[in-house]
């Protein structure tokens, strides 16, 4: 593929892709139809780069460092990678204490590397490799630290590190020597093994991209594109090649108005079994005698622990024997209940209810979004039918299509307001947020109702709904995201 084809900023001919995927659309779309001019874009400023173009970015970084300080290019890469490609910082630290800084970055940049004898080597014959314990080697490659080992051992070492996923941080084989092998050295060792070379290059690219603050791999399946963006806010990017759209900061699904940290917390909470613990807490009680965990499966409140055979009352935890005649004591409310343990259950139950409240709404919008995908197809068919019946032109009916796009966009934002609200502590700000959220919720449902029943007669009313929904969405994002 031609490299130039892939380079494309977010502004270029963008709406063309939007039809494929509802939340990929740039704001421009809606803003055309609805008279809300967004003051901020949800779209990050970015470019999509190919592997070759990214290599160019790295070379530029190396060149700019080499022009600032005197250092070999192969070390420049290691330095940049260890310091997030911050040329100014590196230049400052090098000026400060060059040798100490280089050593901390695992570089041995002595002007003329001397061959050091490895620990066990001193007494043995020349051409000896202490790793395989063989001698007679004519060539013993070494890094700038001067520790010599045979080529075969170097290769096995590289393979072994690669199998652990280590590429840019392959150390010298000598113990307590922390010098990293520059890529040039590694490549010369594995030059005759194309499979290993491919693996090394792939891992090296991964390390380099991950160390660069402005680069990020496209999260699309097997997509080779690398996104370059200087965006600081968790805005949205869409890959030009696979059309996957994601948050430029964390790579998760775009999640405005929620922050990256919060969405991560939310997703972990939804995914892991922390809620199992809450469930146990809310639906089970501990046997008052042996403290084993009991879940009540039947209606009877007379519980016998299967482990210690203790009989007790589910409600008051009292011994069942003393219970007998005065059972109904349990139903009477006591001002100062002796069952203090109950408080914990109530607390856990509250927490569970709170989580479920937000989770149900989050999930529900997610399901609605899926169903509105079908609505989109229906509308498309409807437009085709109308055009075939010579009832208006294709252009005339595009507002229907746009209404679905806007609906999905608003619902998507609405969905992600729930994780935000869940982690918001109870402050006046939360009240304001929940007010705006409720407003958006109302508008989205009204718009959904109108879109589902749109028959092409009430364009004005539908557009009014669109306008209001987008307006609420923008207000909420403006107050809580930008």
């Amino acid at each position, binding site marked *: 593929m031609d490299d130039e084809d892939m380079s494309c900023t977010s502004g270029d001919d963008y709406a063309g892709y939007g039809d494929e995927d509802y939340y990929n659309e740039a704001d421009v779309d809606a803003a055309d139809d609805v008279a809300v001019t967004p003051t901020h874009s949800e779209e990050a400023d970015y470019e999509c780069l190919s592997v070759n173009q990214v290599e160019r970015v790295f070379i530029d970084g190396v060149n700019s460092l080499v022009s600032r300080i005197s250092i070999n290019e192969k070390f420049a890469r290691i330095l940049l990678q260890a310091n997030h490609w911050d040329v100014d910082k590196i230049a400052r630290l090098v000026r400060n204490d060059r040798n100490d800084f280089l050593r901390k970055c695992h570089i041995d940049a002595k002007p003329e590397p001397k061959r050091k004898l490895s620990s*066990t080597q001193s007494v043995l014959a020349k051409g000896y490799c202490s790793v395989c314990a063989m001698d007679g080697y004519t060539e013993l490659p070494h890094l700038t630290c001067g520790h010599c080992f045979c080529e075969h051992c170097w290769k096995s070492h590289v393979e072994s590190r690669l199998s652990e996923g280590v590429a840019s941080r392959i150390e010298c084989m000598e113990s307590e020597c922390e010098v990293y092998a520059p890529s040039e050295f590694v490549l010369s060792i594995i030059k005759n093994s194309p499979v290993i070379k491919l693996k090394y290059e792939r891992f090296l690219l991964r390390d380099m991209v991950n160390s660069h603050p402005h680069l990020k791999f496209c999260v699309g399946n097997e997509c080779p594109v690398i996104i370059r963006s200087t965006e600081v806010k968790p805005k949205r990017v869409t890959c030009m090649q696979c059309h996957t759209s994601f948050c430029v900061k964390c790579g998760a699904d775009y999640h405005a108005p929620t922050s990256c940290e919060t969405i991560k917390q939310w997703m972990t909470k939804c995914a892991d079994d922390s809620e199992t613990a809450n469930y146990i807490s809310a639906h089970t009680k501990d046997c008052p005698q042996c403290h084993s965990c009991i879940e009540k499966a039947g209606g009877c409140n007379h519980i016998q622990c299967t482990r210690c055979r203790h009989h007790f009352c589910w409600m008051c935890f009292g011994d069942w024997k003393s219970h007998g005649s005065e059972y109904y004591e349990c139903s009477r409310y006591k001002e100062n209940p002796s069952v203090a343990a109950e408080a914990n259950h109530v607390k856990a139950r509250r927490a569970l209810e709170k989580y479920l409240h937000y989770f149900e709404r989050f999930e529900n919008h997610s399901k609605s979004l899926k169903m509105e995908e079908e609505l989109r197809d229906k509308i498309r068919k409807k437009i085709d039918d109308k055009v075939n019946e010579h009832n208006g032109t294709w252009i005339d009916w595009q507002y229907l299509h746009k209404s679905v796009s806007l609906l999905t966009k608003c619902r998507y934002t609405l969905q992600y307001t729930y994780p935000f609200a869940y982690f918001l502590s109870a402050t006046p700000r939360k009240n304001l947020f929940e007010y705006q959220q409720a407003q958006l919720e109302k508008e989205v449902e009204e718009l959904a109702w109108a879109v589902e029943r749109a028959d092409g007669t009430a364009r004005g009313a539908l557009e009014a709904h669109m306008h209001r929904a987008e307006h609420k969405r923008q207000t909420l994002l403006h107050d809580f995201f930008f």
Partner: protein
Amino acid sequence: MSNIAFNRLQRECKEVVTNSEISETGIMIEILNENLTEIKGHIRGPPDTPYAGGMFDLDIKIPDQYPFSPPNVKFSTKIWHPNVSSQTGVICLDILKDQWAASLTLRTVLLSIQALMCTPEPKDPQDAVVAKQYMEKPAVFKATAEYWTTKFAKGAVKNAGYQALVDKLKDMGVREEEAVSVLSCNNWDINRSTVYIFS
């Protein structure tokens, strides 16, 4: 196992065996099988430590990627040491993990373990109970480590007081090894130990 590993291990074994190290440094290895994947190590307890006079055995397993991956080494003799699990013998030592380098050998590994026996690192413990005792009750730690050396590693220091406590638990039907372990973990408090065992 690769050729590199086999050649190297042969040399390494020779290195340790022919150097008559056992008389000088107190380390020795013993080959258990022909393809050299399992080796037995021996370390004599260093003088001026609670391990003096004992002979400690180690199980050494050689992985396929040796020497590019570290050997798997653990004590098979029970030892009371902050960086060794008192239950399993697993050793916490950096060169057996991330600080391993291909140029290290079995000899250097055994010497490092011997050095670790001289200078424990309680800040980075393998066995938290032992480390706590080492820092808070150094005298009890020393006596316990000595008792373990005598009990499990043929050491010579006798401790009649500790032995009496162990015998007391044995009379109650507790296995000797468990009795030693529980008493050591409870700073030789017989009451707490019995509560621990029988509750």
